[in-house]
């Protein structure tokens, strides 16, 4: 693992996704976090596995994808630096719905969802703030996915 200049707390504090969280909450979050590093082609998550984590990308790019035999694999979304990966940890049945693969060398902060779930049950304010933050990216990604499905550029041109 590469050494990082800033602590996880400092990184989370600067991140726009966590902007509505208080210092107290951020401390809890940072306590559940660790830095991870993925080589290109390695998986951050696999469809069907228990969803115990979510990730904040510090560097690199991941692909959210799904196997579509026999045609191959369909990439449905790519996520880059500073974006959030995964919300399955927060909602039952806490199982990954898609594969997540690093398409480049990727560094992330991995946050322990199992630990956070319990903390959210105990601390509803923390839970509410996290729910709000995740709802925001969920609605945005849902809207983007709808547009993505429209084939606005017309039929295939290959």
């Amino acid at each position, binding site marked *: 693992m590469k050494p990082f200049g800033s602590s996880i707390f400092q990184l989370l504090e600067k991140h726009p996704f966590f902007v509505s969280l208080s210092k107290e909450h951020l401390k809890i979050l940072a306590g559940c976090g660790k830095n991870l590093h993925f080589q290109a*082609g390695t998986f951050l998550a696999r469809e069907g596995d228990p969803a115990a984590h979510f990730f904040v990308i510090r560097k690199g790019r991941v692909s959210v994808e799904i196997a579509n035999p026999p045609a191959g*694999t*369909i990439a449905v979304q790519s996520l880059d*630096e500073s974006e959030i990966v995964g919300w399955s940890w927060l909602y039952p049945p806490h199982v990954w719905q898609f594969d997540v693969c690093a398409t480049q060398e990727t560094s992330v902060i991995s946050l322990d969802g199992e630990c956070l779930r319990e903390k959210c049950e105990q601390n509803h304010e923390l839970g509410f703030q996290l729910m709000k933050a995740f709802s925001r990216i969920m609605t945005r990604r849902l809207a983007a996915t709808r547009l993505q499905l429209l084939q606005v550029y*017309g039929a295939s041109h*290959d």
Partner: protein
Amino acid sequence: MIELGRSAAWLPEVCVVTDVCRENKSTVTLELENSSSEPHSQPLAGQFHMLYAFGVGEIPVSFSRIESDKVAHTVREVGAVSKAIAALKPGASLGVRGPFGNSWSVSAKEHKHIVLIAGGLGLAPLRPLIERLWQESRKYEQILLLIGSRDPQSMLFTDDVTRWRTRIEVRRSVDSCQFRNRGDDWNESVGFVHTLLDRESELSKDTAAFICGPEIMMRHCAERLVELGVNSRQISLSLERNMKCGIGLCGHCQFGPDFLCKQGPIGNYHNLRPRLRIREF
């Protein structure tokens, strides 16, 4: 008092196709000699020509390249006229009227940050502007080009993109990406083109944005830019309606008070937004 329109404005000039380049299965770029000798009649980035295929008809096509001695038009085969034009060989005649319409307007004095967003064939009308910005890139603090396409095979002007990347930041995204072996044809982004802005938390207030693509795509990209702090008056869109005469007389390209062949095709989002929100307008 009384008179019908001058007939000469309806008369195409016959030009010779000097080169034809197939961009992908359904898209072709035709090169023509730049016949306008006078500086004031030089085509501008964002303007369009009416191209006439013998006996078939006429369609509006914007300039995808403007050089002192030649211009290019990139045509997608969708209807009878575009198919006939795309089938032309070097040496063939092509009827040309124009240039018509207004142009992309950018000034390094007013704007240090530039965002260009192209969707599908919308990259073609932006290309002359991108080329200019590429040449003058030193005058700007940041130039960001976002390109959206249906799939990796439909990506246009890939050689140009490689060259542009030497001076400006280019992010590309496809809506649909299916592969057998990872990285076979695509190792860039996947998702609707405006998600390429998701990694930005804010854009500079002096940003000028230029968007060209399908209307849905332009609306959503423009809204995203506004959300990121860009002034809606500094967001230019290139709209498409039924341009037919090019001189504001046939009435087909009306978009409320505008004849898009004259007052358009480019307008600023601040003015266009109310009308873009009216269905079937």
